[in-house]
């Protein structure tokens, strides 16, 4: 099994603060499938830079407020 990428995110927490916003709604807003949002949230998939920016914009935050690098 491949080691998960050392990128952390606060997407689940941010979704809950915004509504809560469903995974499907976020997926639609950034143009990916719900399964991709799930994979990103679980840290199994690192989104492209474009998707990372799109996610951050949905929450009106900067990319670094949503994503982090595991120390």
């Amino acid at each position, binding site marked *: 099994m491949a080691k998960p990428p050392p990128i952390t995110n606060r997407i689940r927490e941010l979704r809950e603060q915004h509504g809560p916003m469903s995974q499907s709604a976020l997926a639609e807003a950034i143009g*990916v*499938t719900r399964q*991709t949002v799930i994979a990103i949230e*679980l840290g199994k*998939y690192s989104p492209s830079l474009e*998707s990372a920016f799109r996610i951050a914009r949905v929450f009106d935050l900067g990319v670094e407020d949503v994503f982090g690098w595991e120390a």
Partner: protein
Amino acid sequence: MSPAATFRNTPFREKTAWAMAAILTGGAAFYLNMVISASRALGQTAPPIVGFVIGYVVVIVIASSVVMAALALATPREANAPADEREKIIGDKAGNWSGYVMVMPALGALWHYAVNMDGNMLFHLVFLSLMLGQIAEYVFQIVLYRRGG
């Protein structure tokens, strides 16, 4: 999780990969069984019957189309959506890895031909290599979808 919920939560492309892997595995098993039975009856490697191979390919194509259409009707929105970035990466990786799976038995088939000069066996092994490569592509897709990407 209920089977209906599992079906709902599975991405469209993973569902199609499951369906195609099942159809092709069944098809490959049928073909292999036919060749082995015919070869036993003849006492040597059965020659390829072009009509049978063409008919076989047509049946596989029709079966795939029917299953794909049924899946698309069940989830039309997902079926119409283009592959997203993760799905494209999964498709690329699976296609790349399956190439190796296809090449290995094909090389074995060439080696077998060079040693035994059995053109009939060469045909069947190359045909099976093509099927194996395609099955492997769908299996890799399923594994990658399950793993997250």
